[in-house]
């Protein structure tokens, strides 16, 4: 079964500073990997996803993530954060299944991002 760990519960960065949110996964093969963002009381918005190919994935809102198989990691980065990036960020992992059905995804516990003016 797949699992995912986000070691940082809460991170605070200054506006304009760079950001890296950590994510480590456990899965026996190459997984599907996702980053979602959620504002308080709102739904889940997909930032980016990795399923094959280039290990550096570009997403929306200027975010990117790099899949590192050797480290079982999929860290999320942004070169310069904006106050509007303050939210909860979830890393998620999905298993690869056969043709007949897709797999659930499992979420990490989330990292709350605060932005310092």
């Amino acid at each position, binding site marked *: 079964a797949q699992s995912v760990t986000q070691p940082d519960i809460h991170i605070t960065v200054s506006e304009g500073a760079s950001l890296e949110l950590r994510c480590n996964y456990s899965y026996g093969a190459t997984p599907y990997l996702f980053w979602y963002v959620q504002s308080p*009381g*709102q739904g*889940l918005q997909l930032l980016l996803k990795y*399923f094959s190919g280039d290990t550096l994935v570009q997403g929306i809102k200027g975010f990117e993530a790099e899949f590192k198989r050797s480290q079982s990691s999929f860290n999320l980065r942004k070169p310069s954060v904006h106050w509007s990036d303050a939210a909860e960020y979830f890393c998620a992992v999905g298993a690869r299944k056969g*043709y*007949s*059905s*897709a797999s*659930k995804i499992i979420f990490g516990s989330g990292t709350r991002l605060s932005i310092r003016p």
Partner: protein
Amino acid sequence: AAGVIQSPRHLIKEKRETATLKCYPIPRHDTVYWYQQGPGQDPQFLISFYEKMQSDKGSIPDRFSAQQFSDYHSELNMSSLELGDSALYFCASSPSGRGTGELFFGEGSRLTVL
């Protein structure tokens, strides 16, 4: 583009009452998933259906049941509601076949149990 539709968006119930949430997947998506997100928690997988059959089961309480209908919409039935059932319930859908593994989430149904 059509998205996953969940109804109702907000629901208030008393303890021991019953609630039903509905989910309408994206057209041509045959797999539906239900997640529960408690306050300050990550979304927890409850159950999924593929072609109207249960395909996977997570931490769904025995008081809850779900099914997928012939038109692929799904309903989550919750009985004997408890205060701890207050949460945001997400439905997601995906197409079968080799793809990106992406689940498409609805906006969620917020259940408050008083």
